[in-house]
C-alpha cells in the first residue's frame, strides 16, 4: 500500500486500517465484520492486515512492559501508512492512542508510536466526528440499555458518540442503567486475579441493567460484553449484550 490519505478536516479519508482486537477476533468476529461493513458503506476502503494480533494491553496493565512492547511494536510496524486506524473497542483504542506514547518513551520506536497514536480512532468517534454518518432505522421498536465502558467514558471520551449514533435510530429507545459510570468489573486480568470483587461489580451492573426493563444491552467494548454476558447467562437473566456495530448494522441493512 502506497497511498497517503490527506486527513484535512473537510476531506474524508478514502482508506483506513481496521484493528480488530484479539477479543473480537476470537469471540466476537461478527462485531468486527459489522464495523467494517459500516465503514465500507460510507465508501471507505478498509485494510485489514492479517498479521495483526493484540495491542499489548493485557501485559501492559499487568506491569509486564517488555512483553507489551514486543507485541505492540509489531502492530506499529504493521499499521505504518499514514491513514486512520479504526478500533472497535475504546480500551484497545486508548492503549494505542494514549499509552503507546508512554510505553515507548525512551524507545527507538518512540516517534513511530507517537505518529501511530495520532491516527487512532475509536469506531463510534470516527463514524460520528469524521464521517458524520446518518442512519435510517429499519427495525421494529425496541428498548435497549446502553453500557458505556470506562475507557470510552474516561480515556477516549467517546460516550456521547455512541449515544448520538443510537439516537439516530427512530424505533430504538435508550435507557442508561443506574450508576452508569461505574466499572462493570472486567478490567482484563483483574477479572481473573480478583474474581470475587470483579463478580460483585459485574453482578451489580447486571442487576442495574435488568432493572431498566430493556430487552437488550448494547456496548462498544467486547471486554465488558464478555463479562456481563457471562453473568447474565449464568444467572438466566435473559438479556443479551451485543456490540454497538452489530446492532446498528442489523437495524440499518437494506
Amino acid at each position: 500500500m502506497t497511498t497517503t490519505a490527506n486527513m484535512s478536516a473537510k476531506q474524508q479519508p478514502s482508506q483506513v486500517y481496521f484493528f480488530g482486537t484479539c477479543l473480537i477476533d476470537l469471540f466476537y468476529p461478527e462485531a468486527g465484520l459489522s464495523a467494517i461493513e459500516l465503514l465500507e458503506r460510507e465508501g471507505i476502503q478498509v485494510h485489514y492486515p492479517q498479521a495483526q494480533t493484540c495491542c499489548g494491553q493485557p501485559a501492559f496493565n499487568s506491569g509486564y512492559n517488555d512483553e507489551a512492547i514486543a507485541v505492540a511494536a509489531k502492530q506499529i510496524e504493521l499499521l505504518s501508512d499514514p491513514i486512520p486506524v479504526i478500533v472497535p473497542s475504546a480500551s484497545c483504542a486508548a492503549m494505542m492512542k494514549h499509552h503507546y506514547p508512554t510505553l515507548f518513551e525512551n524507545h527507538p520506536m518512540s516517534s513511530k508510536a507517537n505518529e501511530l497514536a495520532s491516527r487512532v480512532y475509536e469506531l463510534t468517534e470516527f463514524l460520528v466526528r469524521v464521517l458524520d454518518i446518518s442512519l435510517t432505522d429499519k427495525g421494529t421498536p425496541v428498548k435497549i440499555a446502553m453500557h458505556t465502558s470506562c475507557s470510552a467514558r474516561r480515556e477516549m471520551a467517546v460516550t456521547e458518540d455512541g449515544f448520538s449514533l443510537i439516537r439516530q435510530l427512530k424505533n430504538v429507545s435508550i435507557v442508561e442503567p443506574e450508576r452508569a459510570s461505574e466499572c462493570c468489573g472486567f478490567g482484563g486480568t483483574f477479572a481473573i486475579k480478583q474474581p470475587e470483587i470483579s463478580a460483585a461489580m459485574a453482578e451489580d451492573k447486571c442487576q442495574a441493567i435488568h432493572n431498566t426493563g430493556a430487552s437488550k444491552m448494547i456496548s462498544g467494548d467486547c471486554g465488558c460484553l464478555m463479562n456481563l454476558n457471562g453473568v447474565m447467562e449464568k444467572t438466566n437473566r435473559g438479556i443479551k449484550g451485543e456490540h454497538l456495530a452489530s446492532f446498528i448494522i442489523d437495524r440499518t441493512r437494506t
Partner: protein
Amino acid sequence: MNNHFREQAIDALADPQLRDNFRGAMDFLRAKRQSAFTDTEALKQLRALGHKIKANTLARLPDLLEQLEQNCLQNGIQVHWAETPEQACEVIHNIISAQNGQLAVKGKSMVSEEVGLNHYLEKRGIESLESDMGEYIVQLANETPSHIIMPAIHKSKEQIAHLFEDKIEGVDYTDNVDELIGTGRQILREKFSQADVGISGVNFAVAETGTLCLVENEGNGRMCTTVPSTHIAITGIEKVVATLDDIPPLLSLLTRSATGQNISTYFNMISSPRKTGEKDGPQSVHLVLLDNGRSRMYQDENLQQTLRCIRCGACMNHCPVYSRIGGHAYGTVYPGPIGQVVMPQIDGLDKQGEMTEGCSLNGACGEVCPVEIPLPNLIRKLREQKSAKPDGHALTPGAGSQRKPKEAFAWSLWQTLYGQPWLYRFVTKMATRLRHASPRAIGGWTRYRTAPKPAPKSLHELMSQRAEANQTDGASK
C-alpha cells in the same frame, strides 16, 4: 509478606451489613461532590490550578521545607524532623514526658495513624484519646479508620449505638444520632480540660509565614490546639505549600472533593504559641515533619506525583472496589486508590505489592482527583516494579520481590504467541475448530460467569475468506 488483600476482600464482600453501609455512604458522598461542582468548566480550571500549585511546590520542596522551618522557629514553633515512624513517636513521647504528661487529646490525623502514635504512647503509659467523633468511635471499638476522612463510615448508627451501650458506663441504647453525638461530646469536653497535650495533624503548612492550617468540622481540632498547654502538630513533608495565596484554591478543592462542602465549619491557622498578654492558646507549639519514604518517592519522576495528594478521599469514594470492600480489607493505614499507591512505596512492594492488584484500572479515581494525580498510571507503574526483573532500577523498596516465575513465564508465552502472526493465526484457528471442546471452567471467571466460547471462525479467517472471494469475483468478471 502481606498477601491477605484478596482474603480480606472476600470476607468483606460476604458481610451484607458492611456492603450496605459502604454503598450508601459512597453514593451519598458522590452525589454531594457532584452537587458541589456543578460547573464542569470551573472544576476543570480549578483542578488544573490545584495540580499546578502542588507541582510547583514539589519542584521546590527542599527549599520550602527549610523556609517553613525558619519561619516556624521565628514564630516560636519548635520544629522536629523525623525520618521514620519510630523517630516521630519518640519525639512526641519525649515532649510529653518532659512535662510529665499523662493524657493527650488528639485531633484527626492520618499521619499519626501512619506512625502508630496511639499505640506507642499507650505502651508508655500515656493515654491518647481521639477527639474526632469518627476516630473516637473507631478507638472505642478497638479498630482503625476505614476511610481517611470519615473513619467510622463502615458502621451504621445501630452498630454505634450498641458500641456506646457496651463500652461507655451509664449509657443506654439509643440510635438517635444527636443523642449519640451528645454523649461523645460530653465525655470529650471533660478530657479536653484535663489533657496535658493536644496533638493534631496539618492540612497545609505555609512556608512563607510559618503557619499551620487545619481543616475541620467538629471544632474538636481547635480544642486540641488551644486548650492544653502544649500543642504538637505532626505532618508529612509533602503538606508544605509556598504561600498563603496557595491555600484558597486547595481548600476549596479539598472540602468539595471530600464531603461536598463549599467550605468546612472551621479553618484554623496556627502561627505561634500564646503570646504575652494573650488569654488562650498553648504555651508551646511543636511541629513534627515526617519523611517515612516521602523523600524516596520524590526521587522517582513518575511516582513523585503521589506527593501531590491533599488527602480528600475522593478517590476512595469513587472507587468501585473500595465501595464494595471498604477500607479495612486493604489492611493498611491508607486504603483505596491513593492507599494502593502510597502504601507500597512506604512499606515496600514486598509487603504491600499485592494491594495494587485490587484495581480494574477503570479510571474513576484519576477522574475525580482534585490535583489530577494519575492514580491508574501510578498503580500500573507499581505493578511493573513489583514484578520487575532483578536487574531493574526501580527505587521503590521490594521492587522485583513479587516476580513470580509462573506468571513471568505465562507472559513470555503470551509474547511469543501474540508476537508471531503465523503462530497466532494457527492457534486461534485451532481454538475455533475445537470450540466445542473449549474449557467450561476457567479459574475464578466461571465461578460467577459462563465461559466465553470461541466463534466458529475468527475475524482473521473471515476476512481472508472475503479477500479470496473478492479476488475470484474480480477474475470472473
